[in-house]
């Protein structure tokens, strides 16, 4: 998506490198849409708009599936293979022995934790129902009423005790790096950052691959929203 064209928001003055692409457009769109939808999900369910909350969750599911596919087919910095590292990688990074673009080995842990926690949250929401039986998740028909009630309880617990702390940690880490002189927010908006010229540049993926990933994720969610037939059926809130 991001083409490597020679313009940047930093002037090409002597001794200073140009901003290079680090995040492709799908990564940035997923990031900010996810942030917005999590906030919207929280607001809507606390303001008597459980129907909007359910649709927001379905939209988040679409993002998660897209991002999972993009983690295999996307630009180099979007791929799990480029940023998921074991404990040794994290140790090396903490000792200053890491040089690259994209997620750092430590940041990758945060990405995986957030992604996994949101996936669990969506999974719980899909089989939940509200306290009054007014609203059901698309897959609630696949489990018992008791299981749906239990899922809702864990769904609430999970948000307050896992999702919110992870978001706080995420924002705190960004502030921490900012205080140390590293700006992380702007590259997530513009997709570009000033990087060491010796660093291997981002290898962008084809834009039509993103469209295919999006079509597949929408297709899967469309099936989920139907109640995953033939296993179940779901009538959306009117």
């Amino acid at each position, binding site marked *: 998506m991001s083409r490597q064209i020679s313009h940047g928001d930093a002037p090409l003055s002597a001794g200073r490198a140009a901003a290079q692409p680090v995040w492709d457009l799908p990564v940035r769109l997923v990031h900010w849409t996810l942030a917005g939808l999590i906030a919207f999900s929280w607001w809507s369910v606390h303001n008597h708009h459980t129907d909007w909350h359910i649709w927001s969750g379905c939209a988040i599911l679409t993002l998660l599936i897209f991002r999972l596919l993009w983690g295999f087919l996307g630009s180099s910095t979007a791929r799990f293979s480029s940023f998921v590292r074991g404990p040794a990688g994290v140790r090396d990074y903490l000792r200053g022995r890491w040089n690259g673009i994209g997620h750092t080995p430590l940041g990758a842990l945060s990405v995986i934790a957030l992604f996994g926690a949101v996936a669990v949250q969506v999974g719980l929401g899909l089989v939940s*129902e509200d*306290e*009054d*039986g007014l609203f*059901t998740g698309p897959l609630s028909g696949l489990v018992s009423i008791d299981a749906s009630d239990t899922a809702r309880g864990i769904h609430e617990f999970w948000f307050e005790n896992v999702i919110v702390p992870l978001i706080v940690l995420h924002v705190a880490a960004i502030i921490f790096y900012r205080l140390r002189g590293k700006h992380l927010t702007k590259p997530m908006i513009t997709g570009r950052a000033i990087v060491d010229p010796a660093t291997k540049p981002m290898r962008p993926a084809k834009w039509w691959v993103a469209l295919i990933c999006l079509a597949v994720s929408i297709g899967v969610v469309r099936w989920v929203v139907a109640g995953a037939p033939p296993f179940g*059926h*779901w009538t959306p809130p009117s």
Partner: protein
Amino acid sequence: MRTRNFVLVPLIGLLGACGGPQTSQVNNPQANTSNESRAEDQAAASNLEARVSVGDAAKIMHARHEGMETIGKDFKALHREFDSPTPNLALVRTAAGQIAGLSRQASGWFPEGTGPEAGKTGAKPEIWKPENKADFAAKLAAFQRTAAAFNATTTRGDVGAMKTRYADLGGACKACHDKYRTEMHH
């Protein structure tokens, strides 16, 4: 799913049998004589103005909690059936009848003195504010009216009509809960 429902029907019946007599004992006479035609009359639909002793308040609040919980369980069972392409109509009729019966009992569930000052409850004190009394009574009457209308449709075989009336009933539940029930009330 189907076998669960066979278990659920007698279970719901059992719940009704337990909750029923206990509930009517604590209701005041006005509530017990209320019926669908009275429900249309908003002023008579609830006992907001009645005052009760502390002991009665505890009993009424307990009956209210149990009653609401039973209604919620029935409503969830109904939701499953209406999400399904082949709803179990026997279960639908049982649940609809029980909700309609409890909705009539609800006339006696909200006397003055059964708010949060009397104990743990999801009922907001706004219910008993003078400016809200007419609105609350109207919402309670709408609950009773829609519950009776839904129950009436279940005696016939038209599932589409049942779903419409069920949605009306859900709307009545939601309108009142959104305004007069606290979020944290377990």
